[in-house]
């Protein structure tokens, strides 16, 4: 039989069921929120690392003339090389229900035995036979295809070839197709021949024997491999050595995991505030009883033990509810995020340590949150406790000042004073809501900053279409042919290629794209961060962007560097750093690059459509293709700049979007805090409400009193969130800049965002106060005056 003191604890819990349920709910919400995020985080972390590692990603990839079994055998014989295999990658165009798309087709030497960059067949047939295509899972929706459909694939000016979609496969090493706006497909060498491309393989994928090597060490191994390839008389066009074990989208995954973790902690803190408020209110109603217990011999520690024990039990009950919910939500969210990032959580479970951590936090959080109000409540002297007459505290100077404000009606004044009556409770409620609001505004600011950054990048690109040709052509031929197309305002022939930095230690950096516009160019003038843009008369000037500088820190303004282009070392001087997208890129004078690539001919052109013309960009693409075909110029691919912009935005705004979702969740937690505060306020003032009823207050007056009180807190949190959003924007902007691309930090909140936040907080307040207001309206005079 439990002792009387524990009987008291249990019966108090039962007697104040609504309050108990609120406390359990607050803890459960906090644990569910934080637990879901933690579960998602742990699952994603494990899945992305383990699945990527299990795919045996290449340590280095070489593009060369052709790769045969003899070369593979020679490379495998190198002591530092673990394995090697060959494949070919081909860029093509596909016609989908949503219009033309760029396709990247992979052809493996032995598709039934891919050992490096393992491809998982997910549905249908593997490997695809001649005339068939297996579409990569992350591209299926973008390509609008299902198994059994026919997909028209076209290489350069060869006729479109219908390929039957017979399989869906997954390659975790690829950046998701939906995000890249690319259709990835796997085809046979026979299919490649049908499409009109050489069926030989030209990529060599290598894994090092020692997987613990860092990037520099792998680069040295890659250099040995390169020498072996070159010793056979082959030319190595480029070498790509990724950071070992790091997924191509690791930055996005990391930032997602980081923000998830940070928001999990924040959600826990907010629910901690809620618990502090609720336990504080619970103790406020027990002051007299604490006094009586002390009077009959209870020591402070015994009373503290009772209430902390109660908090512990409530934490246990809340954890019993929250842990399964957090596991289910975490798994579902991890499944969703993993599928977005092209991973699969099937077969992965939440680590037991993570579950145990949630249980410990679930039990301890209410105890810690309750500790301050419990210790304060238990320190109260018997005489003070026995004198306690419940709520009756004044709103202090704030209420006094409010009382002096002119034009404030009595009922409104009452609501205003009520809001300031329990200052600590109000402060915590305000803090919770305002934090949610600050993140909300910060996410809006970040989104605006990202869009502005993308605007800045694309404002400097005065063209709409990028054309790639199968062969090189004289600039005049290309430019005059394109200018003759109705709807085209101007066109420029460009040169482009791939380059890699030749380092002093003899190794090569990763390859990056080099774009070469004519000088001066009317189509391109990128925003300069430092140094200058290319000018007419430049011969060996090189302009780089920040992501390239991040990869190769030696590329600073004023430095002379050696770039390997088309297998030849060439000297350049870095003259400036520009703002562009997240992909490492460089720009050089057109003629300089054309000379290196041979013949002063060009295989690329950009086209600007006439402003205000009736034809859409897609129509102009069709006209251009038709005109080029008429002149015998083979267009390999055509990309819309707007599409490129969407690709970049999809990459960058994903994080901002996630922040937005998290801020909404935090506002929901803040709203629950407000609802809890108002419920307690009504519970504590039941007698007062009864008195108001006795002196003539009607339903609408009681309703208005509660709702206005909630609105006062809501509007105050709205106002506090605005300055709070400034440091939040700085933190988010800087964190985003570190992981993705630097964005101009927007300090002042967007006016539209501020108004939206006001609307959100008003809705949250009205919704959060609805139940407490309804409860207050149902209070009868007799019941209220009998209430203890």
């Amino acid at each position, binding site marked *: 039989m439990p002792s009387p*003191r524990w009987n008291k604890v249990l019966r108090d819990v039962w007697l104040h069921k609504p309050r108990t349920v609120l406390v359990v709910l607050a803890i459960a919400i906090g644990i569910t929120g934080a637990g879901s995020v933690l579960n998602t985080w742990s699952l994603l972390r494990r899945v992305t690392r383990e699945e990527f590692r299990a795919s045996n990603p290449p340590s280095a990839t070489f593009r060369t003339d052709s790769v045969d079994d003899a070369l593979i055998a020679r490379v495998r014989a190198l002591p530092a090389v673990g394995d090697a295999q060959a494949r070919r990658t081909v860029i093509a165009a596909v016609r989908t229900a949503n219009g033309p798309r760029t396709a990247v087709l992979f052809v493996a030497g032995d598709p039934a035995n891919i050992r490096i960059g393992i491809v998982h067949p997910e549905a249908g047939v593997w490997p695809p036979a001649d005339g068939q295509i297996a579409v990569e899972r992350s591209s299926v929706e973008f390509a609008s295809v299902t198994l059994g459909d026919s997909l028209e694939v076209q290489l350069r000016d060869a006729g479109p070839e219908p390929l039957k979609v017979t399989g869906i496969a997954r390659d975790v090493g690829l950046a998701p197709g939906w995000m890249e706006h690319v259709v990835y497909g796997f085809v046979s060498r026979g299919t490649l021949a049908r499409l009109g491309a050489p069926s030989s393989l030209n990529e060599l994928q290598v894994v090092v024997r020692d997987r613990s090597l860092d990037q520099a060490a792998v680069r040295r191994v890659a250099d040995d491999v390169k020498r072996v390839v070159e010793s056979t008389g082959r030319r190595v066009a480029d070498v790509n050595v990724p950071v070992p074990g790091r997924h191509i989208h690791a930055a996005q995954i990391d930032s997602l995991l980081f923000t998830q973790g940070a928001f999990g902690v924040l959600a826990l803190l907010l629910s901690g505030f809620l618990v502090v408020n609720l336990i504080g209110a619970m103790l406020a109603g027990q002051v007299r009883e604490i006094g009586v*217990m002390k*009077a009959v011999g209870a020591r402070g520690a015994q009373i503290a033990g009772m209430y902390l024990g109660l908090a512990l039990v409530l934490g246990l009950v809340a954890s019993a509810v929250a842990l399964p919910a957090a596991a289910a939500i975490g798994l579902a969210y991890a499944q969703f995020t993993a599928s977005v990032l092209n991973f699969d959580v099937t077969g992965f479970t939440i680590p037991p340590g993570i579950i145990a951590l949630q249980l410990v936090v679930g039990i301890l959080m209410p105890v810690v949150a309750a500790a301050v109000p419990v210790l304060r409540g238990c320190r109260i002297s018997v005489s003070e406790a026995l004198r306690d007459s419940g709520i009756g505290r004044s709103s202090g100077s704030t209420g006094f000042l409010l009382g002096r404000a002119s034009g404030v009606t009595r009922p409104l004044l009452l609501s205003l004073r009520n809001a300031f009556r329990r200052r600590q409770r109000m402060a915590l409620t305000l803090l919770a809501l305002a934090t949610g609001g600050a993140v909300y505004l910060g996410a809006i600011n970040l989104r605006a900053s990202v869009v502005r950054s993308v605007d800045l990048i694309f404002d400097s690109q005065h063209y709409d279409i990028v054309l790639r040709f199968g062969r090189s052509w004289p600039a005049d031929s290309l430019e005059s042919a394109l200018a003759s197309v109705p709807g085209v305002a101007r066109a420029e022939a460009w040169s482009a290629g791939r380059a890699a930095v030749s380092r002093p230690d003899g190794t090569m950096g990763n390859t990056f794209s080099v774009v070469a516009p004519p000088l001066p160019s009317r189509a391109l003038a990128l925003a300069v961060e430092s140094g200058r843009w290319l000018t007419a008369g430049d011969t060996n000037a090189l302009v780089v962007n920040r992501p390239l500088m991040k990869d190769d820190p030696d590329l600073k303004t004023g430095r002379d560097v050696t770039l390997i282009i088309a297998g030849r070392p060439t000297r350049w001087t870095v003259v400036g750093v520009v703002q562009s997208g997240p992909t490492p890129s460089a720009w050089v004078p057109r003629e300089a690059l054309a000379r290196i690539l041979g013949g002063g001919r060009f295989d690329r052109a950009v086209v600007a459509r006439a402003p205000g013309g009736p034809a859409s960009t897609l129509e102009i693409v069709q006209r251009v293709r038709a005109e080029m075909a008429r002149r015998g110029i083979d267009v390999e691919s055509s990309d819309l700049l707007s599409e490129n912009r969407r690709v970049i935005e999809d990459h960058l705004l994903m994080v901002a979007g996630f922040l937005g979702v998290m801020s909404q969740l935090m506002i929901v937690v803040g709203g629950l805090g407000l609802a809890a505060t108002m419920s307690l306020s009504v519970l504590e003032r039941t007698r007062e409400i009864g008195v108001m009823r006795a002196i003539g207050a009607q339903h609408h007056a009681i309703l208005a009193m509660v709702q206005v009180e909630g609105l006062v807190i809501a509007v105050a949190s709205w106002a506090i969130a605005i300055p709070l959003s400034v440091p939040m924007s700085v933190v988010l902007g800087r964190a985003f800049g570190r992981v993705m691309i630097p964005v101009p930090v927007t300090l002042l909140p967007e006016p539209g965002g501020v108004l939206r936040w006001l609307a959100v907080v008003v809705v949250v307040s009205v919704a959060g106060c609805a139940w407490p207001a309804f409860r207050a309206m149902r209070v009868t005079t007799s019941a209220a005056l009998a209430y203890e």
Partner: protein
Amino acid sequence: MNLNTEMRPVISMRGVTKTYRGAVEPFTALADVSLTITRGEFVVVVGQSGSGKSTLLGLLSGIDRPTRGEVIVDGTAVHALPERAISAWRGRAVGIVFQFFQLLPTLTAAENVMLPMDFCGMWPPRERRERAVTLLERLGVADQVDKLPASLSGGQQQRVAVARALANSPALLLADEPTGNLDSRTSAAMLELLAGLVQDGSLQTLVMVTHERGAQRFASRTVTLEDGRIVPAAAAGNA
């Protein structure tokens, strides 16, 4: 009967002054009060509102601390007890009966009586309920043992409160207006009950603050307070 024990002072107050810090100026509730009460006495403390009666009880129970002077109860210097020790001492040495009963609403009558035993670790846990029931029987509320306070009458609640005050067999029972919230018939019964407890030895010493006119006839001594000072017996009799 051991005369030495009987005559030993249970309460010894010497030069006790209690001053409260008021909002405007300090207020002296008790001024230089000295009082000795021996075992077996039933002392009634009377006086006007604000004369210092409740302050006196507060100081005797350790609920309040004197500004100056000594309060010794059953050999313990209450004024010098550290805060952390005072609750445990009070639970064992003093029983308190309040005007508004102050029973815990979620505990039954028996559980309310068992609570001081629980907090002070008095009596083996298995025997506590039996003792509580015995006390409630002696106080005439045996049939209310498992009822919650809300279902008891005022008189019954006060009897349960007395039983709770006696739970740990304290040397001293302090009662603050125990009849203040009862009707006249119930009040008289309560006074008779308390006097009977002193007489039959269930209660060693009783100090009761009251406004009840008839209370003095049950008491062995009356102490009159006026403006924080004890009025000499002769003067009180004249008043």
